């Protein structure tokens, strides 16, 4: 199975996302921001970084890249899509996920090993976790505060669409400690922390993130 990993100018964690895909025994396919089709992949990861420098607003310019149109189309048809950090911001800007990410309440960039609670294990990216499981993965962002209209937040909570919640302290002022959410059909997931940096205890704090990529492979194969 093939998982596409998009590179925009300024993307940083594409190599890490590709490595995580390989660790889950799938093939990583590099997608370029200028691509107009998805090269036959079964799922797409929009990785972290600072696309276009994130000078205007995180993800604001990347969402207009040519590759985003086929991503939006495929996601609407049910292709699994994962947005990590800047990728989450891009998916929000592109309207695939509700809400927006804003400046951390501390006003500082924060890089730390962060505990998360897995709240929804039905998405293709989280089936391998037990509900309520606590995992530790790196968080590293300056604009990670999740915000949305109250009605949107209520809807997300009511429909179980909060996928990850910060545990052991809210690092950025996100409403309801939200660390990650999913689309109405559950196929598109976005989160601020970086599971792709936690696939091997040699280079990350844990290997707790690997199960996300293994979940995907299982879900796609089962489908």
């Amino acid at each position: 199975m093939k998982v596409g990993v998009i590179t925009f100018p300024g993307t940083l964690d594409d190599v890490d996302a590709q490595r995580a895909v390989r660790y889950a025994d799938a093939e990583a396919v590099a997608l370029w921001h200028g691509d107009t089709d998805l090269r036959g992949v079964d799922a797409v990861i929009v990785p972290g970084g600072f696309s276009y420098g994130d000078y205007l607003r995180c993800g604001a310019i990347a969402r207009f890249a040519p590759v985003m149109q086929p991503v939006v189309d495929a996601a609407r048809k049910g292709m699994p899509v994962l947005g990590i950090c800047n990728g989450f911001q891009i998916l929000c800007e592109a309207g695939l996920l509700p809400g927006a990410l804003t400046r951390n309440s501390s006003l500082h960039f924060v890089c730390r090993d962060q505990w998360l609670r897995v709240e929804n294990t039905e998405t293709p990216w989280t089936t391998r976790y037990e509900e309520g499981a606590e995992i530790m993965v790196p968080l590293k962002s300056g604009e990670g505060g999740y915000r949305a209209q109250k009605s949107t937040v209520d809807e997300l909570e009511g429909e179980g669409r909060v996928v990850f919640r910060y545990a052991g302290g809210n690092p950025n002022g996100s409403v309801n400690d939200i660390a990650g959410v999913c689309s109405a059909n559950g196929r598109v997931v976005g989160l601020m922390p970086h599971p792709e940096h936690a696939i091997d205890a040699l280079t990350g704090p844990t290997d707790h993130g690997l199960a996300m990529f293994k979940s995907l492979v299982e879900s796609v194969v089962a489908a």
Partner: protein
Amino acid sequence: MTQLDTVAHAAETPDTEQPFRELGLKDDEYARIREILGRRPTDAELAMYSVMWSEHCSYKSSKVHWKHWSANTTPEMKAKMLAGIGENAGVVDIGDGWAATFKLESHNHPSYVEPYQGAATGVGGIVRDIMAMGARPLAVMDPLRFGAADHPDTRRVLPGVVAGVGGYGNCLGLPNIGGEVVFDPSYQGNPLVNALCVGAMRAEDLHLAHASGTGNKVILFGARTGLDGIGGVSVLASDTFSGDEGGSGRKKLPSVQVGDPFTEKVLIECCLELFAEKIVVGIQDLGGAGLSCATSELASAGDGGMRVELDKVPLRAKGMTPAEVLSSESQERMCAVVRPSDVDAFMAVCRKWDVIATEIGEVTEGDRLVITWHGETVVDVPPRTVAHEGPMYERPIARPADQDALIADTPDGLTRPRGEEELAATLMRMVASPNLASRRWVTQQYDRYVRGGTVLAQPSDTGMIRIDEETGRGVALATDCNARFVKLDPYQGTQLALAEAYRNVAVSGATPLAVTNCLNFGSPEDPGVMWQFEQAVRGLAEGCKELGIPVTGGNVSFYNQTGTTAILPTPVVGVLGVIDDVRDRVPTGLGAGQTLLLLGE
């Protein structure tokens, strides 16, 4: 618009007064330029010489002491060194066909003026040095020194510097794998912002900065050239510069550069693709001294001359003079030498990354660097005289008169804590003291995970990154300097800095291989400072010989002082080691059930 000061015009008007003193040149230096050229320099030539002959670019006060490096480098020490002092950064063979390159550099004065941008552009500059060797930059470190932690100005400088190091490094996708934060009142008006970058490449991909092959094209690529930091290098490194370029009628220009890390990130990827396609003959980063430096150094290191059409340089500001274009310190620019047959391929790679690239000249026969402006010659110089044959000074050296008194004032007179309670209170005070307290406020603003190769970073005393995912080969780095020891005994204090960095690398499981340094001192015109400097260089060189690892490069930052009071002498030493398999690293910290052994006395 004043008349363009061409070479012909300069020859006709030998008596024109020139503001060489305002540009930081001494009378004899100016006389020497006239002697070299056989006429007065043009404005553009004066700008070039003044910036390239500044302390910062020419090492005019320190160069005579480099004899200690060569005197203490044995053939065995040289064996693994692929590039050494004189290149943009040192390169060492780390086995399996891999080469690692690393260097420390200072951006002290700019970071005091504008902490965020000063620190950010400091990171940007050292990263381009590593790129200019043909390597992929892999990680950064940031040894920092600030004034007293509770001084109001430290509140301005420290958060800005840390945000700048983080803002730039995080956006480039370079993990920050270590550094230092030290507080001492001597740095109050003069914080130290040193930055280290380490990179790696296949040994055969090593690129050296030279322009050879007559007919090869000179291509400037990256950001546009603006009025940033015009004369910055001189004003920042030599304290006597008024900021005006002389005769151009411009008001005082900013000596501050603003960094654009996104442009640099794209430039990195673009360069790596150019290297991979093997279409770069020579490459040079544009740092302090901008195009003055890049063109003269490329030409000087090559086997011919060079012709540059300066008006082709893409500009950001209107009405810039040739002298300004040559001196601009606009960031995120590189200069490459490319075979004519590869120019199209070169441009295609740049287009892919949306990087502006412009052919500005070519390598010529002969040995002159000729620069034209809309067809008229404004520079015609032997490039070596600009880049490599600047002035050299034997500054007076004298052990400070108060050194004995300083040493005599031992800690023996201090009261010691007695009894449990006093000991506990002392311990609490130490733990809470700024120099021993947790560095988390700083380190958590730095991404240490990006690229997935970081094996050790904070809280370890050594940073370690994996270079080869198949074999696990990696490098370890530590930077250290206890400047109070150096003040007491610059020779031994510097050796202690070396020994500490060496030990930190060794205990991580890596084998130390090479040394870089950033020598931060006061004014070289102060004989006491020069004594510290000479002792430090000799100490480091002889220490390296003892340990069997060479100094491969470094940086000198003089004039770090407030008024006449110099900072503590701060020769920061960086040691790089190699580890065959990073899985064998030794992490810091104890596990349950482990036995604690003390080695040594």
